[in-house]
């Protein structure tokens, strides 16, 4: 517990650092955000007024102080593009991305670990070879290439899954509760809507997670194969414990530790790749919003999105920390390994 609090404190410190970093990148690099926002033909006076409004006329330290003062109260400034508070934009777009990433994360973890276990169980058979080829494909093809392949296959040749947006035409959005469409439909008891929203998640989620799944599968197989030479496995065999029981009850848990750590990095990477994939599927999530913000040099929106992602990555890391602590008695009993 004490360890967790310590970790939390250092994460918060890192978040502050991240905000400073983003701020510096945004202010030091050349380019005039106010001019960018208003376009080249706007009169000088308007640009100056906007600069004043954005505090761009003040020294950078003062700018950061003003921004931070508002940020800790949840005000991340106004977006130049949507002309709304960035916080409001993030609240609107983030749940859509979370939905995809949760589905992708579950598929990635379950699929990767399952494939890894099966490849161990049937090691050196055709299935093992199949998993190996699959994982090479998953590692080699980037998420945006998968997205293009899926759009090609499902959008045109095999139109069973939707390839754009969050909902089909003519389907009314659910009442606003969590802003995650699938959850909101379920909560309001609209199963047809749930099905439609869910169908729209499948392709983006799968294109995002294939790379991570492949890595998790390889990792799981490698560790399980390494561990299967250990004495306790041999002892199990000698006692006549069934192969499946050994595999799932004794071998799986200690072999999960490296996989879980890899998955943490991969889940964070899902958010990164979402920047490209949401664009392709025309999916209105936070990443597409962030991409638009970047292409338009919308400073406050950019820092808002980056900080939000920083917080999400932090939460993922904390959860993974807890899982590793549960899995690894050495960490649990000795109060932490650094």
């Amino acid at each position, binding site marked *: 517990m004490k360890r967790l609090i310590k970790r939390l404190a*250092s994460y918060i*410190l*890192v*978040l502050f*650092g*991240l905000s*400073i*970093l*983003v701020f510096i*990148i*945004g202010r030091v*690099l*050349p*380019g005039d955000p106010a001019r960018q926002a208003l376009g080249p033909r706007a009169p000088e006076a308007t640009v100056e007024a906007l600069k004043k409004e954005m505090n761009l006329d003040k020294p950078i330290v003062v700018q950061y102080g003003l921004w931070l003062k508002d940020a800790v109260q949840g005000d991340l400034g106004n977006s130049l593009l949507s002309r709304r508070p960035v916080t409001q934009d993030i609240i609107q777009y983030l749940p859509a991305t979370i939905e995809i990433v949760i589905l992708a994360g579950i598929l990635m973890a379950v699929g990767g670990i399952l494939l890894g276990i099966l490849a161990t169980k049937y090691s050196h058979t055709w299935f093992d070879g199949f998993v190996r080829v699959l994982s*090479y494909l998953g*590692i*080699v*093809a*980037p998420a*945006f*290439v998968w997205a*293009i*392949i899926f*759009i*090609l296959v499902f*959008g*045109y*040749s095999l139109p069973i899954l939707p390839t754009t947006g969050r909902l089909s035409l003519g389907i009314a959005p659910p009442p606003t509760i969590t802003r995650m469409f699938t959850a909101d439909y379920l909560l309001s008891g609209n199963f047809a809507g749930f099905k439609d929203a869910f169908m729209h998640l499948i392709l983006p989620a799968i294109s995002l997670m294939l790379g991570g799944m492949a890595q998790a599968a390889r990792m799981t197989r490698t560790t399980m194969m390494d561990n299967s030479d250990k004495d306790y496995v041999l002892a199990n065999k000698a006692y006549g414990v069934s192969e499946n029981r050994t595999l799932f009850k004794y071998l799986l848990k200690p072999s999960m530790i490296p996989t879980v750590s890899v998955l943490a990095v991969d889940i*964070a*990477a899902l*958010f*990164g*790749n979402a*920047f*490209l994939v949401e*664009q*392709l599927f025309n999916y209105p999530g936070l990443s597409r919003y*962030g*991409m638009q913000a*970047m*292409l338009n*040099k919308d400073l406050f929106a*950019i820092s808002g999105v*980056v900080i939000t*992602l*920083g917080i999400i*990555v*932090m939460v993922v890391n904390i959860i993974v920390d807890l899982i590793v602590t549960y899995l690894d008695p050495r960490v649990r009993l000795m109060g932490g390994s650094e």
Partner: protein
Amino acid sequence: MSTNHASTPGITKRDRLEGLKRAWYKFSLNKMSIVGLVIVSLILILGVFQPLIAPYPEHAGAYVNFSAANQPPSSQYILGTDTVGRDILSRIFYAFRGALLMGLGVEAFIIPLGTIVGLIAGYWKEKWFSTALMRVTDIFLAVPPLVLALVVSALMRPTLFNSMMAVSIAWWPMYARMIYGMTSSMRNELFVKSAELLGASKFHILFREILPNCLGQIFTKMTLDMGWVILMGASLSFVGLGEQPPTPALGTMVSDGAKYLPDQWWIAIFPSIAIMVIILGFNFLGDGVKDMLTSEE
């Protein structure tokens, strides 16, 4: 733990040849490493000698020939032509240049930086500046690297050099972390302690004692990372933040082609395959380098 024999006296040319032979043997044990070496060499040759090898070298620039636009793969245009009639094969060859430059440029920048930060922070582990340096790497790693690279390159003018900088900013902490880990576990080893006792300078200890022992891992990571760095560069150009048209970049070619799916599928698919081949090649090669440099039984 192998030490740096290159400068040790008493080692003849023959010994070195023997060493090279053994390294090649270890490398070639895995057939995939050789496949990787072949792929990477091919990419290098095709990129460098594009003007001599490509069927239509001039198509790599602002060339327009609407009468030949949108042609599917044929014997004349092996991978088809794009929307303004340029040969996709010739453009892919040219794009290999940018991709390789991307990989080499980024690594030439981040490996010295990451190594120096890692050595300093690892050797003086209990000092305040070590903690500070490592916290700085934490900050850079607090968001997915692709996001950081996107932010940085979005705020600069889109050129190949600037996207190299953007990828470097996102990537250097990983090297710093790796070298930090190795240095901090190595600094209590006997050979470091004895060098300290003999009064060797800090510079000597860091760069002549510790660094040579990190080189194997650095080379391995370097080879493996080439593919990933190139992919990140392609991702930047995919959203329009890399090298600008008319110079061909793989990411740009994919994203332009994606607009013409499925009818002109070849415009997006072949550059995508090119990206995959690059990653595959460096992955296989990296595994071979790993076998060659780190398996000391």
